């Protein structure tokens, strides 16, 4: 068992494992269901992956630092409720407002985590509760369906450009921004440094707290954007709209090969991870697995992926 794990953990294998898994899965599903490899089906797959990918992108930054964000699904739901409620009156400003709320929520999570020194999983669990509560209260605990006039504002989400669905383009823009942030800015390099070894990063003068807060802001604002895209796709907002998305999002990050101990990871891995999750979901739907029961598979996949990617030398005491 352990030797098998060691082989899987050796760097060469570990780096390519997610991509190989993705290719094998695509071939597998494609063999059983040739229609799957059709351009339209693949574009549909890309559109379906977009929301998951945006959520996973945000949380990637937090996980790279060795933290976790358990509030993304509540933030996305709240954002969907806010857009659905304000779209009629404020038009496009509703999207800005929802996104701004995401920035604010991330700022609060980050400050609670960094200044009050509360472990991130508990700070974001609590923040998730606050956000969920806010969504329940503002929506009066029901789902809000958008009218014909409000849907006119959703064209930038539902439309297509040169045959490519706009959601896919939004996801690609997020990917591009995240890539630049990660590889071309001080934030990206500091994140990698903090994830690799926090005391060393601190001692070298990295403003650890500020980087961490920024990562939480990114995570929550990506979640808010995901909520906005969800409103576009479903033409409704609800306080539980995204509640099934927490597990797949974190699974996407980890399956892609980003280690929850921090330091190792990238946005491209998250892209691969998100695609793996989507293909697995399609495969399971094809096999007739109940959508809720699919969580069993994702739960197992999550733990297995953590087991493979985690760097045990970093945590002498596992709690």
């Amino acid at each position, binding site marked *: 068992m352990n030797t098998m794990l060691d082989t899987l953990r050796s760097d060469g294998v570990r780096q390519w494992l997610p991509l190989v898994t993705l290719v094998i899965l695509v071939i597998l599903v494609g063999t059983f269901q040739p229609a799957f490899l059709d351009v339209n089906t693949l574009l549909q797959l890309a559109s379906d992956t977009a929301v998951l990918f945006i959520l996973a992108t945000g949380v990637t930054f937090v996980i790279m630092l060795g933290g976790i964000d358990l509030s993304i699904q509540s933030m996305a739901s709240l954002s969907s409720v806010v857009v659905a409620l304000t779209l009629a009156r404020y038009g496009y400003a509703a999207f800005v407002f929802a996104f701004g709320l995401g920035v604010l929520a991330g700022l609060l999570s980050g400050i609670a985590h960094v200044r009050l020194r*509360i472990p991130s999983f508990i700070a974001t669990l609590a923040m998730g509760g606050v956000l969920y*509560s806010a969504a329940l*209260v503002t929506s009066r605990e029901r789902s809000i369906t958008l009218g014909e006039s409000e849907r006119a504002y959703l064209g930038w989400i539902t439309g297509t450009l040169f045959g490519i669905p706009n959601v896919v383009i939004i996801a690609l823009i997020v990917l591009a921004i995240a890539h630049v942030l990660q590889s071309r800015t001080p934030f990206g390099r500091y994140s990698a440094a903090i994830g690799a070894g926090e005391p060393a990063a601190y001692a070298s003068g990295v403003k650890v707290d500020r980087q961490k807060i920024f990562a939480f802001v990114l995570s929550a604002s990506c979640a808010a954007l995901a909520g906005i895209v969800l409103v576009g796709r479903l033409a409704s907002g609800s306080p539980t709209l995204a509640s099934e998305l927490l597990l797949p999002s974190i699974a996407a990050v980890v399956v892609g090969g980003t280690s929850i101990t921090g330091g190792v990871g990238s946005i491209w891995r998250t892209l691969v991870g998100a695609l793996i999750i989507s293909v697995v979901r399609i495969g399971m739907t094809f096999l007739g697995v109940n959508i809720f029961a699919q969580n069993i598979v994702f*739960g197992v996949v999550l733990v297995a992926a953590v087991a493979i990617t985690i760097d045990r030398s970093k945590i002498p005491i596992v709690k």
Partner: protein
Amino acid sequence: MPAARRRWRIASWAPLIVLVLLCGIITLINPNFLTFGNLVRISQAAMIPLVLGMGATFIILMGSIDLSVEGGLTLSAVILSMLVINGANENAFGLFGVLIVLLVGAGVGFTNGVIHVRLKIPSFMVTLGMWFVGVGAANALLGGMAIRINDPMIRGLAIERFLGFPWGVWVALGCLLVALVIQNYTRLGRYIYALGGGEELAALSGIPVGRVRILAFTLAGVFYAVGGVLAAAQLGLGNAQIGTGRLFTTITAVVVGGTALSGGQGSVLQTLVGVLIVVVLANGMVLMGVPPSVQIGVQGLMIIAAVALSIDRKRMRIVK
């Protein structure tokens, strides 16, 4: 050290003072709070969080966390609904069914513990996975239905009363007693404290750290299964949403009671106080006409406040 210890003792009384103040304020605003009927209502609302909190306290005392509360509870409740007299099949296992459900809970907890210890995966990640595996398994068993429970003994836990309180409340008090005995009078209880206080030291002193952790998670799983039985009795149904929101209440109760997330400090009695604070506050908000959906948000803020107040910053150089 004596000074530090004295300070801790005062800190451990703070939740109780909060509870008394809370009761006082609510009584001033609405005297109906102190009626016997309301007391019974509070005890009914407190019984399930108390049982769940007993399990979670042991885990948090070790400095770990268990996010699989809802998974264990939901799976237990659904399996129970399929084993006792019900509206979906001919089973009528009665008490034997309850026993099976407790074993299922133990199995869930044991799996958590083994994966956590043997594969060296942080507990929050293992139990996050188990949370969804449990709820997913419950969903798969139900196939989108809800199963009505017709077993008079199970329903009796919520309906039949002894000395004015439903049997479920007595079951919860029994769990508290069991947890107290484990905490104070068994080796497992003392080892759990030792682990939370400093794991390296505990390991060097010859404590079988891995085995203690697995046992603690198994024990927690059994408590969640009892919570599942009580929840199924209260609702009269086995459905897949039966656990929603319970993780949140459980963790709020444990940390508001003053058990430190860093481990080693706290007790099941403090969790009792924490449960009562959460339940009394919820009850008070209902009496004052605050919508129930606000309560989750209030609990979230309580978690942040309680953790921020109780965390021992000197012991944590890096917070992740």
